[in-house]
């Protein structure tokens, strides 16, 4: 068993790590979702160059492991004079990586919208921007909310990889605490609970969003 003293020692750093994980997840989401929507739409654009570029982005980034992206941003870029903090590298890297998945989800959502809607909108004389913004995307997003929910949970868990480039988030904090106190079981259980604290509400929020869209 572990003493009260143990928890007093562990908790402040644990909460700081939890906060850092949350911070990382929020910044990465702010990169991943808009960029993913943009690339996903770009992939069905009538302009061939844009389509090809978006295609290349998705295929290239999606097939690169996250640690490689992190190490590239953190260790390789400084060699050409671009030096960012570990946190910036991790949030940007994770955002860029998850954006490729969001883009694929958005594309599949768009494909799920029956072409009759688009044809009807065009027949009514709506311009292309309104067709995409008012008819296509709302239905596409609605179709992919469960997928986006899964991706958000994935993103939260993937923040743990940032510990390999020295971001002291939840996993990094746990590893340091185990190194110091040699009590891996309570510390890693605490880390598991920490991730649950972040992922459970996220999952619940997306389920609520899903219901909200259905009632309309």
């Amino acid at each position, binding site marked *: 068993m572990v003493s009260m003293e143990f928890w007093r020692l562990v908790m402040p750093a644990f909460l700081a790590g939890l906060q850092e994980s949350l911070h990382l997840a929020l910044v990465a989401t702010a990169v991943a979702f808009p960029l993913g929507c943009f690339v996903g739409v770009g992939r069905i654009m009538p302009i061939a160059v844009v389509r090809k570029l978006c295609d290349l982005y998705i295929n290239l980034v999606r097939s690169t492991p996250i640690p490689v992206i992190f190490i590239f941003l953190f260790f390789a870029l400084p060699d050409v004079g671009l030096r960012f903090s570990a946190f910036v590298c991790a949030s940007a890297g994770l955002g860029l990586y998850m954006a490729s998945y969001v883009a694929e989800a958005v594309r599949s959502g768009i494909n799920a919208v029956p072409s009759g809607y688009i044809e009807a909108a065009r027949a009514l004389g709506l311009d292309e921007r309104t067709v995409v913004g008012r008819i296509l995307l709302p239905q596409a997003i609605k179709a992919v909310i469960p997928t986006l929910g899964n991706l958000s949970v994935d993103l939260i868990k993937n923040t743990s990889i940032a510990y390999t480039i020295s971001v002291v988030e939840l996993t*990094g904090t746990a*590893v340091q605490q185990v190194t110091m106190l040699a009590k891996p079981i309570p510390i890693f259980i605490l880390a598991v609970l920490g991730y649950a604290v972040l992922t459970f509400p996220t999952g619940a929020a997306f389920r609520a969003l899903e219901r909200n869209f259905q009632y309309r």
Partner: protein
Amino acid sequence: MNHQMHRLARVAAGAALAAAAAATSLATAATPTFAPDSTMANIQKRGELVVGVKFDVPMFGQKNPLTGQLQGYEIEIANQLGRDLFGSDGHVKFVEAPGPVREQFVTQHKADLVISTYTITEPRLKTVAFAGPTYESKQAIVVKSDNKTFGSSIPGFAALNDHTVCVVSGSVSNTLLLKDAPQAKIMALSANPDCAKAVRQGRVEAFATDDALLIGFVNETPKEIRFVDNAGGREEPYGIGVNKDSLDLCRWVNERLLDMSKSGTLEKMFASTIGSVTKRKPAPLNAADMTYCK
């Protein structure tokens, strides 16, 4: 039977020591003679001394990527032992003994001696006898060559308080740093080369780990980073692994090492390899410290 064998071994060992002592007084050119059943005599009969070494640890045992030649402190010790055993060069056969299989090399007689940055530890002493120590390893740091904060040595890890230090997550240096320098800003990465890079790129001031590894990184980019010794570091002895069935060989190696230390040969070998980076001088060997032939 067993008792008899022990007695035989003792007699052989005694004879071997006498022979070794005799050999010492003679010029090294002469081939020493050993008791007929001794391990040394058997190796002489075979014509080669098989030594397990590292092929990838600069300054200790490394295969030069350009020439293919083995070089380093441990290679030089092995070559000298070969000269002492055969009276001439060219009787040492080197085999690569990587970290995880060193015990097998010793216990399965795949090598007569294993000299491969081999730390003498309690668990290993249960299966392996050690001649030496030949080297005392310590936790130390490297910094950028132009670093003004740290001189050539720090008194201990406590000197790293308030500095940014890279360590491998969960490593011995990580533990020591948390304990001795709680105010240090730790950057924990997953591999040693990452930490070396972090120092070169100026992300951290120092990188702390085992000195044998640090020497290798300094050797890679001697213009970019330099070694900073740790005067307060706990010493961990490296030894020469010998099979427990061949304690006569272990004792003979100890005799030879003592002789090399006395004559200054060992110090010369050290200065031209490890010492060129660490600026350390090896303490003279002392028979009282060589207690691992058991």
